[in-house]
């Protein structure tokens, strides 16, 4: 069974702080996606990374795919309350395998 472990599981920070969320696996994935989910809603895709070592930026969010395509990180600069939510990584093999999730709370 392929597993994607995310860390930390919970994160509470003040507005303006920086943070990094990690997504790790022992399996190789052809691509990796990051989703954000708000309470009462389904996950929404933020980004897809395909190439080992790839870095993508989405405003204050920076996503990196590990060289070996087994891990990924999400870095948020100057977090804002609107960043609050559940962040899920998902690795693509023959199916999409979701990570365990990181719940982020950003306080004003």
């Amino acid at each position, binding site marked *: 069974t392929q597993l994607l472990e995310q860390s930390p599981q919970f994160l509470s920070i003040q507005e303006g702080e920086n943070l990094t969320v990690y997504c790790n696996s022992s399996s190789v994935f052809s691509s990796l996606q990051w989703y954000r989910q708000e309470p009462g809603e389904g*996950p929404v895709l933020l980004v897809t990374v395909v190439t080992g070592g790839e870095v993508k930026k989405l405003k204050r969010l920076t996503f990196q795919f590990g060289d070996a395509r087994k891990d990924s990180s999400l870095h948020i600069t100057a977090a804002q309350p609107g960043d609050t939510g559940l962040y*899920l990584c998902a690795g693509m093999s023959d*199916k999409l395998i*979701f990570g365990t999730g990181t719940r982020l709370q950003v306080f004003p």
Partner: protein
Amino acid sequence: DAGITQSPRHKVTETGTPVTLRCHQTENHRYMYWYRQDPGHGLRLIHYSYGVKDTDKGEVSDGYSVSRSKTEDFLLTLESATSSQTSVYFCAISPLGSPSTDTQYFGPGTRLTVL
């Protein structure tokens, strides 16, 4: 927003009763998926469909069945609900299914409580 609706949005039922959840899409996407979401487990795939009457099992399919008689509808049935099936259920759709850059679009979820 992708045109995906789920019904009901909330349901409370008793152990041993049958339950059917419905997912409806207006996007004409070929692939449809049912996931369950539980704390500490992320999203886990229950069943998926790659066309009308074409379905396959996912990671946690025991106790669940599905049917897809029309492109737009994908039904998830719990034949005899158990307390371990208390969860939030999400439907997702995607146009391509397998390619590495495909995107899944999720519905709003159904919160099911089995007493």
